[in-house]
């Protein structure tokens, strides 16, 4: 085979689109894409023609009109005179709230159960196995409904707190646990509270700075500083001093039974709590399995070597096993976080007003703009899911095995 033959082989010919391995996949992908675009265009054209035939059009002007309905849980100012757009934003914030809380709680449940499932204690390990198997094998909607009905059935209603000899009483006169939700004291920020908050943030920064300093000291001079109690002191003492020096600028507003319901304080609604709990305990079961797999993927020799160096079991777990296990755990964890966000659209089952409930529910119904609302919903979930993926991928890269 001489050079001219080789040159001829490399020269592009049309038949190579099918015959040459290097180009064939592109050809097929191109055709698949072409068919997909044609199908979408056909559906889109039909949609527009059908809408035109029915005298309808695609328009988002309804977003600017007053919504006319009320929403119970609103993180921003909203009333029935606000626009549909604002109602959608209220829904978005509610979705983000339950997704955020759900991700944190699911990680907590998952990591705890995953580690405990590998425990040497037979009972603990089996209990965790039962938890995982029960929760991940029943659909999440069923869990949401079960937990919500248990919540409704077992907790007293506000009515039970009334009268001379009430059936239920508030915990320390500050916390009320009712079937309509939990009422907890709310901090009220008076003059000077900003200073307290700034001090608090500064002391958190201070703790990290001190720990960094201690680590540098350990590496450069080999001196081990006492960190635990010093950190605690830095964390608490300045804030408490400032708080009392300024004369208690932050006070608490306690919930009180007035009329039909408790008033004042923070009202964590039953719908939020049951949805949050159901989503996190369900997804936690999946995360537990991933954590267990991650831990078991670390070679046994690693923990034996760490033990031989004289490390205690919790140090072995935190410093040797988990950092290596994270490389296996994080990628699937991303998809579980996405699942929580998407599963939160089941919120209407318990009357929690997330974006599916406001934009995809009441707004859609009152305006009849189904296609517009559903398109917006899809766009929202897509943006949120991609953002979570992006953030978690950055984290994943930071803990990946660095090849030097």
């Amino acid at each position, binding site marked *: 085979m001489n050079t001219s033959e080789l040159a001829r082989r490399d020269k592009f010919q049309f038949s190579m689109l099918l015959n040459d391995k290097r180009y064939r996949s592109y050809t097929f992908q191109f055709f698949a894409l072409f068919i997909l675009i044609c199908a979408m265009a056909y*559906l889109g054209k*039909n949609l527009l023609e059908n809408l035109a035939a029915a*005298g309808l059009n695609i328009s988002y002007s309804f977003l600017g009109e007053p919504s006319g309905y009320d929403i119970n849980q609103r993180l921003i100012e909203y009333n*029935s005179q606000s626009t549909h757009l604002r109602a959608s934003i209220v829904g978005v914030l509610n979705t983000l709230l339950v997704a955020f809380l759900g991700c944190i709680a699911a990680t907590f449940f998952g990591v705890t159960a995953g580690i405990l499932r590998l425990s040497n204690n037979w009972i603990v390990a089996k209990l965790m196995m039962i938890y995982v198997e029960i929760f991940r094998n029943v659909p999440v909607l069923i869990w949401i409904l079960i937990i919500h009905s248990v919540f*409704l*059935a077992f907790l007293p209603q506000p009515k039970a707190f009334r009268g001379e000899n009430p059936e239920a009483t508030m915990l320390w006169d500050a916390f009320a646990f009712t079937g309509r939700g939990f009422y907890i004291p709310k901090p009220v920020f008076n003059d000077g509270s900003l200073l307290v908050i700034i001090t608090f943030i500064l002391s958190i920064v201070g703790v990290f700075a001190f720990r960094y300093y201690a680590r540098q000291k350990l590496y450069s001079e080999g001196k081990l500083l006492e960190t635990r109690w010093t950190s605690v002191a830095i964390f608490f003492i300045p804030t408490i001093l400032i708080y009392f020096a300024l004369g208690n600028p932050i006070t608490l507003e306690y919930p009180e039974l007035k009329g039909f319901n408790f008033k004042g304080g923070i009202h964590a609604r039953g719908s939020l709590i049951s949805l949050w709990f159901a989503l996190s305990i369900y997804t936690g079961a999946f995360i537990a399995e991933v954590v267990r797999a991650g831990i078991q993927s670390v070679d046994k020799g690693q923990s034996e070597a760490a033990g031989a160096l004289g490390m205690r079991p919790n140090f072995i777990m935190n410093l040797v096993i988990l950092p290596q296990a994270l490389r296996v755990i994080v990628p699937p964890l991303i998809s579980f976080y996405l699942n929580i966000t998407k599963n939160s659209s089941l919120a209407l089952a318990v009357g929690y007003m997330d974006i*599916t409930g406001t934009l995809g529910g009441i707004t859609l119904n009152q*305006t009849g703009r189904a296609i517009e609302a559903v398109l917006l919903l899809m766009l929202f979930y897509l943006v949120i899911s991609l953002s979570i993926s992006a953030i978690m991928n950055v984290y994943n890269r930071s803990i990946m095995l660095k090849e030097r």
Partner: protein
Amino acid sequence: MKKSVIISAVTIAGLTAGAAFAGTLDDVQARGKLNCGVSTGVPGFAEPDANGVWQGFDVAVCRAVAAAVLNDSDAIEFVPTTGKTRFTALASGEIDMLARNTTWTFSRDVDLKFEFVGVNYYDGQGFMAKADLGVSSATELDGATVCIQTGTTTELNLADFFRSNNMSYEPVPVETGSEAVTNYMAGACDVFTTDRSALAARRANMENPDEHVVLPEIVSKEPLGPLVRHGDNNWGDVVRWTLNALITAEELGVTQANLDEMSKGTNNPEMNRLLGSEGTLGEMLGLDAEWAKRAIAVSGNYGEIFENNIGESTNIGLARGVNAKWTDGGLIYSPPFR
């Protein structure tokens, strides 16, 4: 819920353009079955009985139309719809008509492109509360938690009522009326609000109806009636005049019992035109002469349907009230058969 909305949207997208919205009558006759949208279950209005057969006040309208068009009052595919899914189901052609306690409003008629063919029940929104709550008027409900079926006009009326009375409330939105009742019974809300007819129906089915009171206020007008899509006037006429036939039959004294005798021909020309022994009204609709006779034969005239499903002799116990025929001082009135 969400899924069916998307499916309906895709259905609209997938239908061949143009032919989708015309000729519903031909479609129904070719199919041999009427697709009728009903609620997911309101006692007395639309609910499957112990044998799984749909019965009720709204269902009777579907059956009358099926009898008029297909000569078979059982040739119906009942499609249960929630407050959220009903309009998409109708707009996409999944159902031919909707008979489901749906309030006739301007925006539904004009903006959503539907055609309300008439009113079969004049209703108003009310509140139900537990008797031991000690509430005697809806104006005492400041701060109350209210269970409400989402995707209905009641949701908007509720917001308006509390705003105009300067009161606050906490809405608990749920998907269906039965879920709302479950929440109400569990104490998740103090009051349950919906149309007063449905309140009466729900209350009748509770364990101890006496423990619940329907508050006296009527906070809105809710004319409920069957509806079809815009753009197929012939089909709209069929449904409209079937409903009118039931109403006229009551006015003329045609009942299930005397129907056969009356249809042989009487000395009342309007009755003869209605029952097909005179004139060509059925032909004008694209049906045969006995269409109205068949519609009435299924479950009687409007008054009989009312009495047997939701009237005072049933456990729902609604009085005719404004739903009496116009000659008795009510609002139920049909244009003449001429």
